[in-house]
């Protein structure tokens, strides 16, 4: 899936379509409920969970403030250990670097560990365009790849499909008409499909969970062991990693290897935790490359309010906790990064040119912030980005004259002065009569307000506001009391 195929529709439009898909909604609700339940259980059992969150947040925030320092430290240590560090300012440059490396080794196929960063740069499409076949080895990514689908969740990319759908697709794509329907049958089919590829293919491409500055090492956590095989069997390993993924020290893994698995999959520990450093003769890949990707991260770093976006360790707990994501699943976001973190990350990675409806794809309920293991205040960043969008829109002629802007300016005018507000209330009490049905409810409203009345009624304004009731019933009495207090003998 190439990058250009994302971001074609705004969130409300895409969501409207996905809401019709009851199978996907059922799958998403089931899967997020299961993961969220496990996550809640294993985070509640840690007495120092909140301390771990705080520590994680501080380490990540500190690293981002000194990102130049830690990245150059990583580069020096990784190079010394025999790795090759490449810097890519954007998707095109990263693709060029990776393609060049693959072509130099004359590889016609590469094996891949699940990496959202490669999705972000559209790596697979670019390799395919140059006659190179990328093969996904993560079960969920394999499902996505064979099904010509796209990921809807960055920890569980195929969260939106169920077992029966996977079976049907494997039967078709792997030519296995007699495939069973148990999870073991499906896993066995995938294993047999992949096993010979690990042994044959010489170039592997991965992402990375952490770049470790003080050792120059890297860390990848995973559940299936496919990662371990990709990291150890091929001759050449190429890792594409966002620049924000660096942590200062190996010891910091103490925090993140507790918070990441518990938040991501509800496991106390990942089944496979791989850390490695450079190359070692006779052990693992002979050649190791890291491509450090900026691709829009620099400007986020420069924005003090939004910088915390880059603290993300991609656990996807915010997706599993989000009531909006529960309804729509990930595809409605039309982005590699879905859910609450996607709603703030995606538009920023696109210089706020695309994904402009995403910061509004939240009721600001705060569930994302509550579960975030590095305490990204996602609602705060959403509001900050909404602020940017409103200001940019107001700078255009059309934006200034939009109904939203006019309505908001009018409301702001009223809220500056109680006299004006009271007058508007009186006008509303009379004016609403054209909308109020016989039953005393408003069942239809025009223009953008029609969104409300498509599924909901609205109680009409009562004839007397609270302030009018107070002025009539209570204020004279209160004044009398005050007078009595001032003048007790009267």
């Amino acid at each position, binding site marked *: 899936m190439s990058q250009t195929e994302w971001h074609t529709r705004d969130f*409300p439009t895409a969501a*409207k379509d996905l809401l019709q898909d009851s199978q996907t909604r059922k799958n998403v609700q089931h899967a997020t409920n299961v993961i969220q339940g496990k996550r809640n259980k294993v985070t509640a059992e840690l007495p120092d969970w909140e301390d771990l969150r705080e520590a994680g947040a501080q380490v990540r925030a500190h690293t981002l403030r000194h990102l130049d320092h830690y990245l150059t430290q990583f580069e020096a240590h990784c190079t010394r250990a025999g790795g090759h560090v490449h810097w890519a300012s954007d998707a095109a440059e990263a693709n060029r670097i990776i393609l060049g490396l693959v072509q130099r080794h004359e590889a016609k196929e590469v094996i891949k560990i699940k990496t959202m960063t490669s999705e972000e740069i559209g790596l697979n499409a670019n390799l395919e365009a140059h006659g190179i076949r990328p093969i996904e080895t993560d079960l969920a990514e394999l499902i996505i790849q064979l099904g010509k689908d796209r990921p809807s969740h960055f920890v569980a990319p195929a969260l939106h499909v169920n077992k029966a759908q996977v079976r049907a697709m494997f039967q078709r794509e792997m030519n296995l008409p007699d495939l069973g329907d148990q999870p073991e049958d499906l896993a066995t089919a995938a294993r047999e499909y992949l096993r010979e590829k690990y042994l044959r293919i010489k170039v592997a491409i991965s992402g990375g969970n952490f770049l470790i500055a003080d050792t120059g090492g890297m860390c990848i956590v995973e559940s299936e062991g496919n990662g371990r095989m990709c990291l150890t069997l091929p001759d050449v390993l190429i890792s594409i990693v966002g620049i924000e993924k660096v942590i200062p020290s190996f010891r910091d893994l103490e925090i993140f290897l507790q918070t990441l698995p518990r938040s991501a999959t509800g496991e106390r520990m990942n089944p496979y935790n791989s850390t490695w450093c450079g190359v070692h003769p006779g052990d693992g890949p002979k050649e190791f490359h890291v491509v450090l990707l900026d691709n829009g991260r620099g400007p986020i770093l420069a924005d003090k309010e939004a910088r915390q976006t880059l603290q993300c360790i991609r656990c996807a707990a915010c997706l599993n906790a989000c009531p909006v994501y529960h309804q729509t699943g990930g595809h409605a976001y039309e982005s590699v990064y879905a859910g609450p973190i996607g709603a703030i990350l995606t538009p920023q990675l696109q210089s706020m040119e695309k994904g402009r409806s995403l910061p509004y794809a939240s009721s600001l309920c705060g*569930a994302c912030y509550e579960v975030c293991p590095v305490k990204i205040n996602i609602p705060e960043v959403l509001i900050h980005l909404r602020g940017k969008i409103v200001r940019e829109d107001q700078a255009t002629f059309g934006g200034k004259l939009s109904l939203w802007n006019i309505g908001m300016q009018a409301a*702001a005018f009223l809220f500056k002065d*109680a006299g004006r507000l009271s007058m508007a209330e009186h006008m509303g009490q009379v004016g609403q009569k054209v909308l109020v049905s016989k039953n005393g409810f408003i069942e239809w409203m025009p223009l953008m*307000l029609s*969104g409300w009345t498509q599924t909901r009624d609205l109680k009409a304004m009562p004839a007397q506001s*609270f302030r009018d009731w107070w002025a009539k019933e209570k204020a004279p009495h209160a004044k009398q009391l005050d007078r009595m207090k001032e003048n007790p003998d009267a």
Partner: protein
Amino acid sequence: LRVSLFITCYNDALFPETGKAVVNVLERLGHEIEFRPEQTCCGQMHWNTGYLREAIPIIRHFVSVYRDAEMVVVPSSSCVAMMRDHYVKAAEMDGDAKLVVEIEELLPRVYEFSEFLVRKLGVEDMGASYPHKVTYHASCHSMRSLHLGDIPIRLLKKVRGLDLQPIQDMQECCGFGGTFSIKNADVSSAMLADKVRNVLNTGAEVCTAVDNSCLMHLYGSLHRQRTFVRTAHLAEILASGYAEATA
């Protein structure tokens, strides 16, 4: 105590009964209630929709109205959350150091209604009587910003005759989210449908909350579907049956 009531803009225009109930409950507890007619809105709608610059005069107006108040009570957790989570930031954004100081001085005296009763006054039993099956909707801001915990539940449990029914997925948003309900009307409606199903499953006749905004949203659907469930702000329940009890 001399308690100043910030009724909030939407309660003023749409839910005056809630304000009257707050006055009833607080007066019954022996407090003097004042209503400053200069009050308007907390600025939440503008701020949360991204009209940050437009929210600042509204915030400034709020502070100027209540600067010298002894106590401010607000029957809406989301408005209090707006103040606690965003006021200082807004004033800093505006570069107004004096406003920052004024906000920091004022906010410790601003309470959400149920929080004021339990945390400030230390009372749970209002002597109310409300012989109905009721379920409680925990609004997002009351849970995640104000951390009210079981405060509203404790108040409800002391109400005579009230049959409190637990609701499934209590922590899940009702889908209102202010302008979210309009900008993303379809997703909002889907969230609302799940919440309404959970409300109906409780068998309650009344759904209560500390925010009329969520209740307006919920009732919008409950009424559209012509269900028998009605909504009532917690204050209205706590103000009920008192006259009979003392008669």
